[in-house]
């Protein structure tokens, strides 16, 4: 659409201005030695330089726990819960996390559409930040092609020294940069500067996987019997951490809860994980994915194989969270590369 500029020193001012508009402003904040997305009570909590926060942006679209119905006990119909949210600005999301939102959108768009997602999506404005160096040894963003901005945001900041170049990608974004106390227009000179930055980036960003993005699914399909999987099955603790932190995992459980007077209740959904034993277990005891190996396979198939067939894209955005969080040190890079090595 267009490009603007913002002085780095004015980022705080921007946060304050957005907050004064009664928007909820959230962004990466420090938590102990890591980061989490959270409400920015003050602008200095914002950590534009960060590694992927513990949970991804999906918590703002499909929260960990979400009410579906409220009901009076004994009734057969519930009262539908209104999910329309406060207008929220997500400030400082990495491009991989933004790609994660696009994946969720794809999944939620399948009929019947997940209305809650779209209801919230309407009211979220994303200000992204481009990474100029890889986060750590776990990220696979280069392979997945998510290290460069590819849409899905309203504004994208690229660090060009004392300023950020701002790519404006939506009408809402335009409304924000219209504040000429904070933003100034950028001329074409800056655009070529950004292009230079992108070319330079290729020097610091290495491909982490030895397989091309669009071939991982095929590779997985070919190697289901590989001992690599047996090893993973032995190591996995089924803690569910890898799916909970993943920006694109969206499975959920539906639960009911009533108050102690057993008069009122709610039906709500909570994130569920295909790594848990009971996920595919039915009454009577049959379990369609009984062993850990099968469940881990299922997870990766759901990242690299089925979505390609269904949405023509991988559902991994290369953020590296699953590997980073795994206490058994099951690593996506290691898994894929070992499978690739074996299948040569």
């Amino acid at each position: 659409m267009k490009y603007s500029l913002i002085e780095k020193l004015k980022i705080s001012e921007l946060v304050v201005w957005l907050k004064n508009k009664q928007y909820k402003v959230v962004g990466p904040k420090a938590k102990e030695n890591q980061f989490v997305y959270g409400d920015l009570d003050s602008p200095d909590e914002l950590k534009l330089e960060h590694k992927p926060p513990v949970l991804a942006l999906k918590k703002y679209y499909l929260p960990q726990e979400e009410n579906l119905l409220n009901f009076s006990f004994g009734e057969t119909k519930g009262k539908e819960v209104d999910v329309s949210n406060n207008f929220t600005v997500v400030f400082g999301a990495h491009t991989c996390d933004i790609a994660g939102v696009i994946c969720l959108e794809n999944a939620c768009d399948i009929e019947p559409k997940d209305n809650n997602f779209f209801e919230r999506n309407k009211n979220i404005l994303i200000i992204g930040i481009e990474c100029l160096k890889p986060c750590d040894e776990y990220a696979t963003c280069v392979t997945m092609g998510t290290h460069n901005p590819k849409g899905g945001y309203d504004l994208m900041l690229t660090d060009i020294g004392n300023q950020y170049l701002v790519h404006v990608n939506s009408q809402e974004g335009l409304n924000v940069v219209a504040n000429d106390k904070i933003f100034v227009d950028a001329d074409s000179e800056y655009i070529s500067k950004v292009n230079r930055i992108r070319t330079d980036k290729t020097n610091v960003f290495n491909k982490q996987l030895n397989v091309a993005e669009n071939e991982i699914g095929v590779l997985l399909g070919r190697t289901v019997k590989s001992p690599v999987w047996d090893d993973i099955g032995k190591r996995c603790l089924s803690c569910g951490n890898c799916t909970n932190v993943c920006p694109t995992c969206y499975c959920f459980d539906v639960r009911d809860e009533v108050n102690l007077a057993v008069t009122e209740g709610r039906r709500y959904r909570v994130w569920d994980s295909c790594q848990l034993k009971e996920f595919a277990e039915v009454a009577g005891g049959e379990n369609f994915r009984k062993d850990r190996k099968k469940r881990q396979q299922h997870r990766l198939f759901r990242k690299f194989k089925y979505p390609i067939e269904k949405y023509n894209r991988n559902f991994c955005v290369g953020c590296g969270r699953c590997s980073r969080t795994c206490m058994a040190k099951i690593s996506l890079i290691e898994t894929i590369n070992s499978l690739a090595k074996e299948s040569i």
Partner: protein
Amino acid sequence: MNNSLYNPIKATIVATKQMTATEKWFKIELENKKDLNHNPGQFVEVSLLGLGEAPISISSSPTQRGYFELCVRQAGKITAALHKLKEGDNLGIRGPFGHGFPIDELKGKDLLFIAGGLGIAPLRSLINYVIDQRKDFGKVNILLGCKEPKQLLYTDELKKWEKLTGISFRCTVDRADPDWKGNVGLITNLIPGIDIDVKQTYAIVCGPPIMYKFVLVKLMEKNIPDKQILVSLERKMKCGLGKCGHCQINGLYCCQDGPVFSYDKIKKVEGAI
């Protein structure tokens, strides 16, 4: 509205019958006697607010208007609570969900029904539909198996089916009791003996997970083309909307893409059968 997909509609139980020690039959009317408008093979989510939901096959034919029937096995929390309900009680219904049997494709064809245990519930919907629209379909074979005679469902109806012309009905039990006069043995034993025109015949299978493997082998021996074998599969389900992920069979969602699948679609799919 936002969550209308998750909001059940009100229904009333108008009749029940304890069919066996663990299975109970329910006749249910929607509010204002609205039709459910289902296809045979589809299911509903039965909802008890405060307890949860369970997917249950619709076991009556859509030709019966103004009500529908379910057959529920007591297996856990919701089904136990359902068993406590009686005539006049209300419950919530969502659905119908899923792809049922491809009626148009089946028209004019011979049908071979193979049901194990509770698998008769979804098949009964189609069987009764076929009986009601008898002219539209060819020869009908029904094979029914269960563990013990006392577990047989719809016993009165089975007797009627036995007597209908143009329908061949056979039943077998794994273990007989002293009063049992019929076949004894696995349902797979009945398959070789049936006389069918393979080109014309669609086999329709529903039963416990382990039954499929064995039945499919026998059907293949009979040379029924994969495309003409229809199976109705069971998976854990939470939403019925193709969202929650529990029922996923590889890339397929059992609740939306199924529960009825033709065998050629899933034979390459790991873990489906």
